[in-house]
């Protein structure tokens, strides 16, 4: 999916949203930001520095961490080890494995997975895998966290829990969030500002309320159900 002329700024401390129909280029945008694809043109700036074309691990260590839409836990590692990898190689780059696991455990407590710390990640339910994906990203020490559809596929109860978690990450940990989301309830409930993409182009930007009434957005979404 190609992107064309997308310009957007995430402000420190906010929760920004990214919406768009399937194939609008949301995940591609995340991949470009985090160094998995290099843009042919244009630039990505983070905290005033140009990070265009840098390698994913480098971008992560600068404090810009992503999750994956299809979650990718390390299946044969325990939940705790999964999170410890973030502590060992992310922004903090801990060299003491004991300490990394200790701090990883604290993160698991924060996201509510501590009771499953010792089981292999392959044994988790979908909802727990999503928690793990977020926990791992938190362990890497993000200042800006890119969440790629962490709410998709959850039951209504799980969605509410996950929304609370996202809000806590933003407010208690002070982490800026940029999230791709299909669940409109979450976008309206969480985001300060939203950008809408359509076929790789930005079609609107504003508060969730403005976006919901934007004619271009409504037109782009025609034919596709808005999820509640």
């Amino acid at each position, binding site marked *: 999916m190609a992107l064309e002329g997308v310009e957007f700024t995430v402000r420190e401390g906010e929760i920004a949203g990214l919406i768009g129909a399937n194939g609008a280029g949301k995940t591609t945008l995340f991949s470009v930001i985090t160094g998995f694809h290099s843009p042919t043109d244009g630039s990505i700036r983070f905290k005033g520095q140009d990070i265009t074309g840098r*390698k994913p*691990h480098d971008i992560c*260590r600068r404090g810009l*961490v992503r999750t994956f839409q299809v979650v990718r836990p390390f299946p044969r590692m325990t939940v705790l080890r999964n999170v*410890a*990898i973030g502590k060992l190689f992310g922004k903090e780059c801990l060299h003491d494995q004991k300490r990394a696991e200790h701090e990883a455990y604290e993160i698991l407590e924060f996201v509510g997975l501590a009771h499953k710390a*010792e089981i292999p990640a392959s044994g988790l339910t979908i909802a727990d895998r999503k928690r793990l994906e977020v926990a*791992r990203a938190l362990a*890497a020490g993000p200042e800006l966290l890119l969440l790629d559809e962490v709410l998709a596929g959850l039951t209504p109860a799980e969605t509410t829990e996950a929304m609370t978690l996202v809000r806590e990450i933003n407010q208690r940990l002070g982490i800026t969030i940029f999230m791709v989301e299909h669940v409109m309830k979450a976008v309206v409930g969480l985001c300060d500002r939203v950008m809408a993409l359509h076929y790789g182009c930005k079609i609107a930007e504003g508060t969730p309320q403005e976006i919901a009434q934007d004619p271009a957005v409504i037109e782009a979404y025609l034919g596709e159900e808005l999820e509640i």
Partner: protein
Amino acid sequence: MSVALDVLMWVALTESWIILSGYTGYISLGHAAFFGIGAYFMAMTWPKLPFLLGVLAGGVVSSVFALVIGLMVFRVRGPYFVILTLGLTEFILHVVINTEIKLGGTVGRILMSAPSLTTLYHTMLAAAAVAVVTAYLVKNSRFGAGLFSLKEDEEAASALGVNAAFHKRWAYVISAFFPGVVGAIMALRHSYIDPYNAFDPMVSFQVIVMAFLGGMEDVEGALLGAVLLTLVSEALWARYPYYYMIIIGVIMIVTVKFMPLGLTAPLKGRLLARSVGGGADSA
């Protein structure tokens, strides 16, 4: 002692192989290349360089070579990596053959006044011990945690800050050191080398079989696999080489079919069950 020397050689080769291929899942068929490089380094410098220095330098040269080609081979993964490492070994083999023919007109080299078998044995013992310890230390280090995360999911690992290129390249360098050392020792052991026995792809394959019997990423398993297979080979190889090879082939197929986690897995399972809460393998 000659049997013990062989056992130690395969232990060193297998333990070093798992550091890259066992821990990251990049199956290399190129261990023979490093063995050959070590052997040829020894052949060209013996007896000008003192024995131990030559052996160490053989390992270093082999590591440096890994560092250089590491820039290139890790651009691909999966089956491409497997056949690229195999192709590289064959490429080096033929370059050596052509160079040797140009230089001396023949392909073989004879090495005179080799050190005693005891000296070779002790050197090999040291190499094997260091290989086992290295494999163990790497596995339990932060670096090793990075390698294992690559094996699980390379992209997810880099999204968490793991420098994939760095990890793979240095695991390759460490892994290549030991076959270089072993090759240098074995060149003197046989006191004759030619490109075909120095760069024998069988070495690469046999190492995989041994590592596989041991469960691929397991330090003790690799040790066990190497010792077992070498002993079987020593018992049969000299008298019934073809039968031995056929048996090895059958063992390989049967093991994969019925024990896909390696020969030592059931053994380990039993041990784990016995020790209470015996620290589940974190990797």
